[in-house]
């Protein structure tokens, strides 16, 4: 028994050193050397392209109705027969209609992370008219901007097509 205990303690210390320090620190070294942009959070002067932000006002393409607090990630966890969820989605639909935007699934539901940086292409196209009107831009130009910001599934089949809202709005800001 004492042998087992002594061995266990030694093993825990040895594994702590190798798996808990050497392994992650070597990986950190590799990340900082080879992929420093990604490993540090894909940061741009306007924020991280991987963490969504709240965009308000008709001049910007809006993301999903998430909380966008990366210090408290996660979904709403409301179930498919939740009255609260019905009420929340009803509110989002009304808000979009008031802004002249046709509601789509991704624009009225919240994400799993609570910081989803993307919307679906249909969600972006639905906002084109409203954004073009607010900025006094030709609709065709804004539509073209959305089209050029669609990222397809990786290798054509892994995941879904999406539009990164920060990149789209950054490009929008450069238009004029």
């Amino acid at each position: 028994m004492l042998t087992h205990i002594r061995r266990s303690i030694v093993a825990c210390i040895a594994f702590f050193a190798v798996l808990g320090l050497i392994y992650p620190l070597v990986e950190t070294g590799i990340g900082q050397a080879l992929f420093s942009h990604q490993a540090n959070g894909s940061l741009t002067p306007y924020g991280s392209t991987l963490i969504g932000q709240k965009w308000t006002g008709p001049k910007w393409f809006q993301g999903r109705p998430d909380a966008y607090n990366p210090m408290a990630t996660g979904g709403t966890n409301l179930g498919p027969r939740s009255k609260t969820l019905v009420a929340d989605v009803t509110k989002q639909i009304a808000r979009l209609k008031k802004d002249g935007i046709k509601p789509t699934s991704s624009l009225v539901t919240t994400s799993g992370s609570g910081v989803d940086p993307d919307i679906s292409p249909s969600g972006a196209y639905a906002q084109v008219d409203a954004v073009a009107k607010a900025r006094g831009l030709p609709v065709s130009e804004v539509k073209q901007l959305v089209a050029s910001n669609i990222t397809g599934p990786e290798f054509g089949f892994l995941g879904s097509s999406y539009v990164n809202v920060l990149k789209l709005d950054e490009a929008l800001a450069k238009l004029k």
Partner: protein
Amino acid sequence: MGLVWTLVALVVVLAIAWRFLGHYMAAVYEGRVKWAAFIERPFYRLMGVNPEAEQSWQRYAASLIVFSGIAILATYLILRTQAYLPFNPQHLPNVTPALAWNTAVSFVTNTNWQNYSGETTMSYLSQMGALAVQNFVSASVGIAVAVALIRGFSRKGSKTIGNFWTDLTRGILYILVPISFIGAVIFMAQGALQTLGGPVHIHDVLNGFNQTIPRGPVASQEAIKQLGTNGGGFFNANGADPFENPTGLTNFLSISLMLSIPVALTYTFGKMVGSIRQGVAILAAMTIIFGSWLAIGAIAEHQANPAVTAAGLTHQTTGNMEGKEVRFGDTSSALYNVVSTQTSTGSVNSANDSYNPMGGFATMTGMMLGEVTPGGVGSGIYTILIYAIIAVFIGGLMVGRTPEYLGKKIQATEVKLAALGTLVMPITVLILTAIAVSVHAGQVAPLNKGPHGFSEILYSFTSVTNNNGSAFAGLSSNTAFYNIIQTFGLLLGRFAIIIPALALAGTLAAKNVVPASLGTFRTDKPIFVGLLIGVILIVGALTFFPAVSLGPIVEQLSHGKFF
């Protein structure tokens, strides 16, 4: 269409893993692989272990239990003292006692149920040095038990089943570390974090929005979290967080890593018992059940969310997007969560709690089948071999002869141990759920009302007792009541199955092999696959049907009702 091609790619990746990783793992545990001997030998010297010295099943089990106990203590101590330790840029306080206990037990049992949000609770040292270390170690313990049980079948008249310390060390150094190392690099290249720099504050001049973005050594933990079927996220959102799972490619990599070892172990099993066909039969049973549950989950999530429809969005082209990330979409999300629940991983890339009723049914009942399709690393195969013993026993009863499996006579001792191994999980889940729904501290935790609230409680005990770790996460379970009661499920679901499995390994190893005759029931034929599937489904359905009827089933049937 995306799902079809994803599945094709997955089959290709898993076929390669099955053949080559399966072959390699057999060589590792038979001691024929030596390339890391220069790191391995110092480990044995430090521990004072002779790697060649074999153990009886009792000594093997004792080593495992004591080691796991010390590991719980070590993890607990780091969490309780993280404020005084380095790598804590957010200056987070020590984790509270009940939560630290729950978390330590959860990670040592390969469960990774999380009653905390990583971004505001755990220092980088706790993540790297306490939690990720247990991701490696608990995974290797699981594979060790599987290999010990396989040795029970492959040996004749043997008093020993291997050496726990050797199996533990070899699994980590030869299998888990190399694959995780490469996996982590891919995660980083795709956008996963890997830094010791603390959180950053950003101010976006375009929209005037301010944000504090947490960071950390994420990629290194992500790789082993999936490979070791652990599942504990660095952040609260787990695999939905773009810093953990940034792209469709990392989503696919995660799914592949979760499935690789459990699938490949069926080859290892076949190889070690001298007949690959025996492994194929086990894999076939796993695949048929897994495929059926995936179909239920993917079809369910491809339907509109009833609450969104009721709110007035009648035309939904993309399926249920509540709680899902746009970059994954509905079916890739369902695939990930079904894989994660049936491999006992428990990471999620979308909120299980917001799945449609039958989607939640798929993830919950996938665990209730005992995590054998293909189950967690090691635990999947040792548990399904226990079911296989029950299957040949029932087959033997039908034709009235003493059952055999892989040439070993299955007698009273083996059947009793196998029955114990199959019944511990359902009994524990149902009793703990019954306690939680009868006391105030248990009743107040669910976020959702109606049947979904009951599902949250039932899901939680199913998850912890099957060492899965996923959640219907609306449940507020960071309370003294849940932190403590869950650990009973965690410990029983792990060790009350490991001990019978090792005892089986011991009694089987001691037996001689009965030569196969014309009357022998062939366990490498479709009829056995069918019998094994039948046993798994009947045990699961008989024990859980009443409870599941009160949750997802009644929810599915309550058309137009909201709670």
